[in-house]
């Protein structure tokens, strides 16, 4: 057996100083040589643990083998047969806790950089096979059945792509003016270029999926009306769109944003190009971001790029408990984001014009583990101190929007507002309705939403073929 190569090929990245001032992509992607070198490290295990670690079951060793052999069209074909959104997944999936964590070489701390290779294949296709996106793939035999997909985020796009490939007539209803959901409004350009999202949306459309924009289901047609009007099944993938706040004093002061609002203004509405684009966004000199997840990192790094002098992450636990991807925390640290850990806001202070001027915070310490298994943060009595800020972004997570559940008869929801659905099939208690992604799980990841979309598509197909 050949000697194991434990040297992962590093991802070229923009210099931290330079990138803190632009919205261009931070990670630059492999060259063909780098991709071949990394692919060459794969030992092509008989037992394909990496595939079991992938929620959409991409045939990872096969596409890696194709890269190694320099057969890029084959790599594209293998990858896209399971994953309609590889350019997106290669950038935002937490591979370190999925396919790469189950890679045999992970035991040696040098798993194959599957995510980077996936990204390379997707980018190669976009740059070298432009016709693949314009020429629709061979159409399957139409089943004569119609499926409505509500929401065009990762769950909806995946379900729609799979259902279309199975021969069903699919229409996506999207509330916003572009398709992509959180991929468009939430994740910033420097982590996921919008051009790539739109190229992959176009691919899904090329499979025969119709996309109806500006369509707020529940306000226009209700779910029940959709079911009554010729659709045989519905997949709900509306995500968790309702921002959570701290519910503390001063939270409605001017200059305090939900992360959803801040990121929507910046990413979806392109406020970073104001006044060329009409939507403005306020950028303070001293910005506090409350929370420790990926959305908090994204918000902090956007604020920095928009010209803030000091950007703080205020998080009530310690770095070890942060839910953000390790890579994103490191990126943020490199760029100069300041971490105020074991710190939690008590209230926000404002001036006479109702603008925020400070965050009064408690110091925290870690106590016994709570239900999440992480050590519970406890307030240190009398530890209040004030951080001067002129902008606050609250990134505490999101809940499902009640718009659909409140206008639909017979859909079961939990006390968190999530829709109850079978974990394996996505089937809800309501006849002909499936659901998946954040609307079922609460805020989670792009790939887990895609996995749910895939499972639901399979279950819907089985039902429709009865």
């Amino acid at each position, binding site marked *: 057996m050949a000697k194991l190569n434990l040297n992962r090929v590093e991802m070229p990245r923009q210099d931290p100083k330079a990138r803190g001032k632009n919205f261009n992509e931070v990670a630059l992607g492999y060259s063909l040589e780098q991709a071949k070198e990394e692919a060459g490290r794969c030992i092509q295990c008989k037992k394909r643990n990496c595939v079991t670690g992938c929620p959409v079951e991409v045939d990872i060793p096969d596409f890696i083998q194709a890269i190694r052999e320099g057969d890029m069209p084959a790599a594209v074909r293998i990858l896209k047969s399971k994953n309609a959104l590889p350019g997106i997944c290669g950038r935002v999936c937490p591979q370190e806790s999925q396919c790469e964590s189950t890679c045999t070489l992970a035991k040696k701390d040098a798993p194959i950089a599957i995510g980077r290779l996936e990204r390379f294949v997707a980018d190669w296709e976009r740059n070298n096979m432009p016709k693949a996106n314009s020429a629709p793939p061979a159409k399957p035999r139409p089943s004569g059945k119609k499926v409505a997909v509500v929401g065009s985020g990762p769950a909806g796009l995946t379900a729609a792509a799979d259902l279309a490939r199975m021969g069903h007539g699919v229409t996506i209803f999207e*509330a*916003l*003016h572009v398709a992509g959901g959180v991929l468009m*409004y939430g994740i910033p350009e420097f982590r996921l270029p919008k051009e790539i999202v739109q190229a992959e949306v176009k691919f899904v459309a090329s499979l025969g999926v119709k996309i109806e*924009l*500006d*369509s*707020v289901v529940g*306000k*226009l*047609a209700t779910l029940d009306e959709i079911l009554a009007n010729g659709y045989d099944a519905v997949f709900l993938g509306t995500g968790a*769109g*309702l*921002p959570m*706040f701290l*519910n503390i004093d001063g*939270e*409605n002061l*001017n*200059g305090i*944003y*939900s992360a*959803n*609002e801040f990121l*929507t*203004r910046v990413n979806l*509405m*392109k406020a970073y190009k*104001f*006044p*060329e*684009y*009409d*939507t*403005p966004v*306020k950028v303070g000199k001293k910005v506090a971001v409350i929370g420790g997840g990926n959305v908090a990192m994204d918000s902090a790094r956007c604020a920095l790029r928009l010209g803030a002098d000091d950007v703080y992450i205020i998080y009530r636990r310690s770095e070890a408990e942060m839910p953000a991807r390790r890579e994103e925390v490191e990126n943020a640290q490199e760029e100069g984001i300041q971490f105020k850990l074991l710190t939690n806001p008590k209230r926000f202070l404002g001036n006479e*014009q*109702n603008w925020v001027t400070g965050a009064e915070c408690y110091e925290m310490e870690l106590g016994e583990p709570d239900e999440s298994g992480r050590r519970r943060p406890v307030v240190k009595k009398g530890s209040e101190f004030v951080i001067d800020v002129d902008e606050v972004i609250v990134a505490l997570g999101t809940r499902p*929007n*009640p*718009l659909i559940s409140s206008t639909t008869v017979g859909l079961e929801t939990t006390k968190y507002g999530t829709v109850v659905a079978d974990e394996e099939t996505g089937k809800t208690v309501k006849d002909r309705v499936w659901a998946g992604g954040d609307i079922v799980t609460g805020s989670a990841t792009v790939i887990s939403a895609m996995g749910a979309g895939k499972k639901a598509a399979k279950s819907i197909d089985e039902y429709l073929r009865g």
Partner: protein
Amino acid sequence: MYKILLREDLVPGIHLFKVAAPAVAAKARAGQFVVVRIDEKGERIPLTIADWDKDKGTVTIVFMEVGATTARLALLKEGDAVADFVGPLGVPAEIENYGTVVCVAGGVGTAVVAPIARALKNAGNRIFTILGTRSKDLLFWEDVLKSVSDRLIVTTDDGSYGRKGVVTEPLKELLESGEKIDRVVAIGPVVMMKFCSLTTAPSGVKTIVSLNPIMVDGTGMCGCCRVSVGGETKFACVDGPDFDGHKVDWDLLAARQRIYIEEEKCAYDEWRKSHAA
């Protein structure tokens, strides 16, 4: 794209568009709004639905030029189209037979009051309407409101038409006239809605206002439009836009409407400069 089928300039700076939007028209109800985006670079702005026609598939909006976006919108002609026209959003106005309802309309809010007054009239209410503007040349839809009102009082700030003064004066007189008033609906500028609510507070007559904070998506996603009502934070886009005027934190609403005042001025100045020629 959503085509503008009819354009009418109601008064200087206030325009009416009848837009082809059959799906919205099929569902629209009094008190709801749409989010409009002119083009690719445009912002999303909420505009209240002034009228709709299910059969013809049209929705009517009335807007006032107050900044760059509305000034840009005002340049569009019949046959032009807007990129996005999303709705109907928000909770419809509560319509029941309450008895006697006073509808107070201020400025461009007249267009918002009209469908609500009509729906209330159709539900069997007696409607007293107070219509206020700054001066006679800004008055529109007097005839529309007259057709759904049992009584109509017009006020102008400068006395150029109707009664000289502001809407709260006749409102106060009606409340004190011995007439049994069961409900008040007041829609117009924030300061007008605030003072109408203060006027009706002593009598305890339920007073409904329609709030217009800054919005982005209009579907509950961003929280930009949060308002404080009875000490609780609400999102005007999904919990409103109608609220109990006696419980609204008016100062907060006014302050939050000023968040982008510098940017709005900058954009409007830029726009005017580029259109000076």
